[in-house]
């Protein structure tokens, strides 16, 4: 890759205020998830003298209902939150892209079957489906959680992907590849897919936004027993399990996960809108 290839998008990124703000927030969270746990060891042992301790120099965000430092929980939680949404985003994009590419390029009976399946899945309400699946499957494995989360999201992408492929497959160079006898799968993955990569990238970001919304919801209602420091679980404990929300001196415990959830969601949305601006200049107004 030439230097210009990297500097080009970076330049636009800096020009676009939304993308810049979003990427700075995201970068902060990624660094926090990667290096935070190495710097701040998590000690889940109850310390009764510190129950609901207010923010102080040693505990910048105070302590929770068993006296564990909230900032450390948030930092360790960031790792869980980001891992789950990244896996869910990847699975959604891979599944949606493959179905869309195959349906669009193969056409005929394959397209009819896949497209009907997509239509059916699209009509089933997404979040309830995810909640039902999570309630039934009860898993702690991040990949399985990613699969559950993508169940309500892959179909929308598959449909968009299919219509993109339909317009691309009539272009001359695809025609040329077909004429010299290159196989269909190899045309799909080496000729069609590369053109759609920006679209796939943006779809990945939007899938991540969606799965953040859904995954926090799942942990919040207590369906998934995956992690005790996931921000959704922290909210669940603060509001429904420990009743901290009703304790006047425990307010910092409720507010901390709320603020970090909002901050991450805002960062992700700003970044994905910004990236969309960069790749679809027509949308710039």
């Amino acid at each position, binding site marked *: 890759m030439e230097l210009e290839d990297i500097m080009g998008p970076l330049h636009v990124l800096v020009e676009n205020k*939304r993308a810049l703000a979003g990427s700075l927030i995201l970068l902060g969270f990624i660094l926090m998830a990667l290096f935070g746990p190495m710097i701040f060891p998590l000690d889940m042992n109850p310390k009764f003298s510190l129950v609901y301790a207010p923010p102080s120099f040693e505990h910048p965000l105070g302590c929770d209902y068993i006296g564990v430092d909230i900032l450390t929980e948030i930092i360790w939680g960031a790792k869980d939150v980001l891992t789950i949404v990244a896996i869910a985003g990847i699975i959604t994009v891979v599944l949606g892209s493959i179905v869309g590419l195959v349906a669009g390029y193969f056409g005929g009976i394959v397209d009819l079957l896949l497209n*009907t399946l997509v*239509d*059916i899945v699209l*009509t*089933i*309400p997404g*979040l*309830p*489906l995810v*909640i*039902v*699946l*999570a*309630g*039934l499957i009860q898993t702690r494995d991040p990949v399985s959680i990613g699969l559950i989360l993508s169940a309500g999201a892959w179909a929308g992408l598959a449909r968009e992907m299919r219509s993109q492929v339909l317009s691309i497959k009539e272009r001359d160079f695809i025609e040329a590849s077909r004429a010299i006898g290159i196989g269909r799968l190899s045309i799909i993955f080496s000729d069609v897919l590369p053109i759609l990569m920006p679209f796939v990238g943006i779809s990945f970001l939007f899938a991540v936004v969606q799965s953040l*919304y859904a995954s*926090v*919801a799942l942990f*919040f*209602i*207590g*369906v998934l027993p995956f992690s005790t420091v996931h921000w959704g679980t922290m*909210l669940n404990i603060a*509001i429904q399990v420990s009743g901290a*929300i*009703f304790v006047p001196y425990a*307010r910092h415990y*409720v*507010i901390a996960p*709320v603020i970090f*959830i*909002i901050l991450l*969601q*805002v960062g*992700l*949305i*700003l970044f994905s*809108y910004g990236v969309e601006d960069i790749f679809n200049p027509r949308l710039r*107004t």
Partner: protein
Amino acid sequence: MKWIYRRALLALLSIIFTVVLTFFLIRLMPGNPMDYYIQILMRTGRARTREEAIERAKSLMPVNMNDPIWKQLIDYIVGVMHGDFGRSISSFTPVSEIIVKSLPWTVFISSVALTLSFTIGTVIGLVLAYKRGTTFEGFSVAALTIFGAIPSYIMAVLLFFLLTIIYPIFPMNGGYDSLIPVGFTFAFIASVITHAVLPVASYVLTDFAGWALGIRAMATTVLGEDYVTVAKARGLKESTIVTNYVGRNSILPQFTGLALSIGFLVGGSPLVETIFTYPGIGRFFAAAVSARDYPLLQGLFLVLSITVISANLIADVLYTRLDPRVKVGD
């Protein structure tokens, strides 16, 4: 006409798919839901002997667990078609009764919320499109993006925390004050309204932003159309141009979004309703999941899906009538 048949067939397929999916999901789980219920009955002492427990468990679902699986599936489908979804494990009430009781509450708050956020969002979006290029517009769009990014259940937590606990202005839970007798009295209606304010606000404060940004983008495109330039050249009043020319033409795509919100109208949000312990369908849904109340979960999910699928069908058909420019088919 042919398109409508295809669309209806698709809706029917979707409903069958959902029914079969819910049936197999529950049957394929490790641990039979009936065994689970029998255990609960025995443990809590609600059934003294194992036979009594099995007998009670049988009346939970319109299906005989000893039959071969294909016969269970057929019995299940026939039951569903008769509106028989079995009984809730946790309360032993018929699932259909729970649905009939909780659905009106959800439809009440979510339709009020949807109307408010649609109206507020449309007005704000049109104003922003007209003020495009100004600093005011830039700040407003940034603010709307942030508001739109907040999940409604997080907004619900914030409102609950701020306005029922820190400043106890609004009631904390339920659909109405249980001390006031139910009826068409001023006190009862006032109580229903004050209980609905915060759940409705949680939806409106997060959803209006999406509507506003949507119509702003659309109206910005419409403002560049020739007929708007002509209208300006004819010296028409700005207010006339905004409402009659821009507004009317940019609102149509918003209706597609409205049709997609039908699922929300009947399902509400399990989380928002749980936070305010609102007696709607969403709260029962969340409760059924955490209590492993499978017949209730199955019934609620089915009713929700069937309503959404049929409503989407109706919306699609109406939409092609509303806008002749819509291309029918693929």
